[in-house]
């Protein structure tokens, strides 16, 4: 009986007792969700264009951040280091397309997925080879203080990340929806061979989409690297993007954002109000439970494309 009370009644009483703290938890969750979304976006872009789950996306975040911070440490200004890192990510995309993807056209998705695992391991080692494994501080001027509105605290760095993510999503959504390249990307995602037969250059499309994913990885890497320093644990943040993808759908850019926000708020509220009942650290698995609940009602995710298979 006590258990039921603690699960069904006590948390809500606590919320009612301190609504300002609840508001802070929700805002904190939204801000964390934005950070997850930044990583999830990279997955979505590549999945949209190739139907491949890019296992290397987390490592791409790390690799981009390593290059950016390495160039800064070498004495370059932010304004030079940023475009140079973008160039490196484009070069990486070109290498991936030339050396890996072009050899695997029309192969099963699982083969391409396995290839991305290999790319991930390679990039991790190559990144360490280039820039060593030392932790690098990344300071690009993102404000680190907090605003206080009454009892409610909001991190300035979180708001900065939210604004950047918002701009990124708008640009990407417009790009996919209204440009020729965007339409071509969607066509390639539907069917490689069909897209090629109507004259869509598959290899150029893959190059573009991996470059854009590299750019998104750089933005995510800068945001996360500014928070915790650039170190190899950054590659682990990809795990936080998985429930976001399950919930938001693997093919929707807005889905990555909305999914991120739902997961962010859901896991923070669950951790703070229900976590102590289970010994804490429930947000780790609660995100997946939440995503699974959504899947019961929308198996393709909130914004994913409905799959209709005719026999």
């Amino acid at each position, binding site marked *: 009986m006590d258990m039921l009370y603690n699960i069904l009644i006590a948390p809500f009483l606590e919320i009612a007792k301190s609504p300002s703290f609840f508001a802070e938890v929700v805002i904190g969750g939204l801000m964390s969700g934005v950070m997850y979304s930044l990583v999830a976006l990279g997955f979505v872009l590549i999945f949209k264009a190739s139907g491949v789950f890019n296992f290397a996306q987390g490592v791409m975040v790390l690799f981009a951040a390593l290059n950016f911070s390495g160039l800064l440490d070498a004495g370059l200004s932010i304004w030079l280091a940023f475009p140079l890192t973008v160039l490196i990510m484009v070069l990486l995309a070109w290498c991936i397309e030339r050396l890996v993807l072009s050899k695997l056209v029309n192969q099963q998705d699982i083969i391409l997925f396995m290839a991305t695992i290999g790319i991930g391991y390679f990039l991790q080692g190559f990144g360490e080879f280039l820039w*060593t494994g030392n932790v690098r501080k990344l300071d690009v001027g993102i404000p680190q203080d907090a605003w206080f509105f009454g009892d409610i605290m909001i991190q300035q760095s979180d708001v900065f990340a939210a604004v950047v993510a918002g701009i990124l999503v708008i640009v990407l959504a417009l790009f996919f929806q209204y440009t020729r390249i965007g339409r071509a990307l969607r066509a390639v995602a539907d069917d490689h061979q069909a897209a090629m037969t109507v004259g869509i250059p598959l290899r150029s499309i893959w190059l573009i989409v991996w470059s854009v994913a590299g750019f998104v990885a750089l933005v995510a890497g800068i945001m*996360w690297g500014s928070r915790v320093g650039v170190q190899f*644990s950054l590659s682990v943040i990809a795990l936080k993007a998985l429930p976001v993808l399950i919930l938001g759908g693997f093919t929707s850019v807005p889905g990555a954002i909305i999914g991120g926000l739902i997961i962010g708020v859901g896991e923070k509220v669950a951790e703070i109000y229900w976590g102590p009942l289970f010994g804490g650290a429930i947000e780790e698995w609660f995100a997946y439970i939440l995503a699974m609940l959504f899947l019961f009602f929308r198996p393709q995710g909130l914004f994913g494309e409905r799959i209709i298979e005719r026999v």
Partner: protein
Amino acid sequence: MKKFVTSALAATLVAGSVLATPVMAAGTQNIPLLVYRTGPYAANGIAIFAGMIDYFKLVNNRDGGINGVKIKYTECETGYKTDRGVECYDRTKDEYGSIYSPVSTGITYAIIDKATHDKIPVFSMGYGRTSAADGRVFPYIFNFPSTYWSQATAIIRYIAKDLGGMDKLKGKNFAFIYLDHPYGKEPIPFLDIMAKKFGFTYDKYPVPTTSMTEQKSIWLQIRRTKPDYAIMWGWGAMNPTAIKEAASIHFPMDHFIGNWWSGSEVDVKAAGMLAKGYKSAAMHGTGKNYPVYTDLKKYVYDTKQADNLASAGDVLYNRGLVNSAYVVEAIRTAMKKFGNKPMTGEQIRWGMENLDVTAARIKELGMTGLTPPVKVSCANHEGNNPGIFVQQWDGTKWHMIGDFIPAMSDIVRPIVEQEAAKYAKEKGITPRSCS
């Protein structure tokens, strides 16, 4: 016949000259290193193993090895994963299995039975299974200069000192932020005991290993509960994230104390000035201001053999140096009994149990101020001097503050023996006699 006599004479002369060579012993002292230079804990592993390796190189280059026996080490990458650590142990034990320093509580736990069976000592310097300090039950496991429980008591003693006395602990509330991993959970039973004894309360905040970089919910709760002190048992990316989050909620940083695995440059660099005031326990000194560094420069750095020069002088690099120095001294001690030749695991265990690193010996090693004296015995594998130093980050570097804080051994030792006895009963071990 003449040819035969000439050859025999020549052979005798050659043999004689070899035997007359004073120190050069046959073979090498093989030592395995279960390193982690990749993965989420790479930044920590790179510094600590660089220290270990550079000390071995120093001994080889400067002294020609330990009493003439050169050290040969091999690396096996674990990625700080317990399963890979066990695999590395199995792969290296036949050729290199003399003594292991896994720098991982998970791996230490996993190889306790194997190492004991194989008669190979495991040196878990300031980590691993606390109850292994009872050498009667754990003859091959060593955890000097201090265990997690001793460290926890010393941290509580430091907080009490900060508050104005042990009685001031009563009614206080602490936040305990820990890695959700055997390492992070190790001090919990003892914190429970101390909470009861001294009348304080503490809230537990586990950080999952896959969410080390996302701790917002924890720090929101800490902001709400406003604990008097926060104690951290972290590792890897968990530490810089926690320190940054603490700074961002304006938690008083001088009331935030990490254990000695949460107090290296790797942990505070990302936060920089934001981490100013943060404290941590320490088992040895920081920086390069010790005579041993003069030798390291001459024999290792200047000969371009440094494993990772960027880490030299860092907290974790110094920990690696001290770790290797203890290993070398234990082998040297063993050689006094068994002769100047490569030592087996069993012989090194004897060396560990008879290790007495005095202040005079530390001076000879050029490590005065870097590491305190320690004496190990058959029954007490934690050593006779458990406790902590406290260091504080000033925004750019660590500084030692205050004196050595001794552990509450009167509380710790009986529970160590109790837990060891429980383990012995579970495993059907008859504790050996150390009298």
